[in-house]
């Protein structure tokens, strides 16, 4: 086995606990240590979007503003994030999404699986990708991540515009849909 990120040879360390779980290491300890988990960064988060927050607050400024704007009819109940978007994650995402290095998805396999274990009554619906982008990349990144959960995936949504979100500013993303 080799680290999926830096290709270093992985020493399979067999202990009693690894012997009975099927979790196989995909990356080396050096690469692993460069990811930051949100729950390690802070123990208090925004109840909707999971942004790290001061102890005295329940909602972050953005989620508070959304609630005001939508008068309590916000379709987003809750966002769950696992990692912070640090420099290392940025690099990995660039490789994964823009260069199309699909294998990198397995870096997150165990983590995503574990997250779904604790959830009940849900349906997995990935955000679709424009046909153009799908042909370029060869995969839908949301579906790729969803597939790691090991649950049934429902493709219920259809895309009406093919503009790239990543090319827009925060303001443009928020006010794209004028009806809001």
């Amino acid at each position, binding site marked *: 086995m*080799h680290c999926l990120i830096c*290709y270093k040879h992985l020493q399979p360390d067999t202990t009693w606990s690894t012997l009975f779980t099927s979790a196989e290491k995909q990356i080396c300890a050096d690469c692993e240590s460069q990811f930051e988990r949100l729950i390690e960064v802070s123990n208090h988060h925004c109840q909707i979007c999971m942004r790290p927050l001061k102890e005295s607050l329940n909602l972050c400024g953005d989620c508070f503003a959304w609630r005001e704007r939508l008068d309590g009819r916000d379709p987003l109940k809750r966002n769950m994030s696992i990692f912070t978007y640090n420099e290392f994650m940025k690099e990995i995402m660039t*490789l994964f999404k823009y*260069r*199309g*290095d*699909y*294998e990198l998805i397995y870096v997150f396999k165990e983590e995503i699986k574990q997250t779904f274990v604790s959830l009940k009554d849900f349906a997995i619906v990935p955000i679709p990708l424009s046909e153009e982008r799908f042909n*370029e990349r*060869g*995969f839908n990144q949301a579906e*790729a991540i969803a597939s790691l959960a090991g649950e049934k995936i429902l493709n219920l949504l259809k895309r009406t515009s093919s503009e790239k979100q990543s090319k827009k500013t925060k303001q443009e993303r928020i006010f794209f849909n004028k009806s809001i």
Partner: protein
Amino acid sequence: MPRYSTEKRLLKQELHLDEPTFQYLINQNLLTEIPGIHQHQCQRCFNQGRKYFGKLPSGHIYCRKCINMGRVSECEPLYQWNGPAPVYEQVQNPCVWGGDLTPLQEHASNELVNQIKLNGSLLIHAVCGAGKTEMLYEGISYAASHSMKLCIATPRADVVRELAPRLRKDFPNVKSAALYGGSSEVDEQAQLVIATTHQLLRYDCAFDVMIVDEVDAFPYHKDPALPKAVKRAVKEKHTLIYLTATPRTNLKLKSKLNLIPTVSIPMRFHGHPLPVPSFQYNKKIEKQILEGTLPNQIEKWINDRGNRRYLLFTPTVEMAKQLSTLLNHTPYVYAEHPDREDLVKQFRYNKFQALITTTILERGVTFPSIDVAVIQADHDVFDEAALVQIAGRAGRSANDPNGNVTFFCRSENKCDGPVETLFISDEP
């Protein structure tokens, strides 16, 4: 003829063609499709290692090794121009440089032109600061005036960035392209290409003359794909020139066995020898820096510089960072530093007195009148070649030929052996 796609193997998106034109060229057999992966080998970067291949959801295999140049896969082939070969200009008197060569430089220069006429090969073994670039001028002129396409390839992007503006100034009428990861230029039938050896992975049967500068530098000597890329990038009839101050064993051996004609230039262009380094020892140098104290010797060395400018080489990025904090945030650079290009430029333009760097600036770059220190010179990353090259950064101009070169080492015995003898034997 799509000008940027001749003599190369490119992905569809790199062709920049609209769909009807693309289809037309394919139907007319003017573009040939090359399978991206053939017999478990990437047809761009020669990768055969199993760990460097990935699988798309469609089941197609793709190459992870060269994915930063765009993805090559079983369903993403490469394309090669199959129409008439481009014809290059005969540029009359292409060189406007007015300087003179020393007799030794002239000897190398003549030999280079000779080999170009013969489609031969040549190793130019010249000490750091011998004036290697100027030795190439006659050869470049000969190629440009005989409709040849010439490439100067080097493993280091910094060297490309330094070389390209110089050559453009001295060869204003030769169409050129400077290629490195992240450069915005494309080779639209340029006659003179200055590129990193990695960029050669996109070429196929392109060059009449190939000059590989700093042939012993990382990653060229470690990555077998790069010499293969050089071989594929040249035409069947070609001239291959290697340039280095510190050839590795295989090239030394070839030269000794007369398998490759060799010109040796043991003297710098200004006639002064390479500065001999002085050594200072401190067992705790690494520990002190990483724990946040500046070792006294280093502090003293820096104070002794006065107004002189200097480079500090560190073995690791981590130490560069720490040292920067200890030295009032002196700028530091390393391979992946986002502002690397800009910081080196600013140092070149005298914007600050000192720069901390990893081995990325060990070679190929000229800053006039600087001193250099190597922190933990007995660290594994500083092999013999690296230390000779680093010493070669000092005393490069004729009016200031004696820079100070100091190696800070942890242990005495490791330092004096090979390093000192190397410097002495390298003198003319």
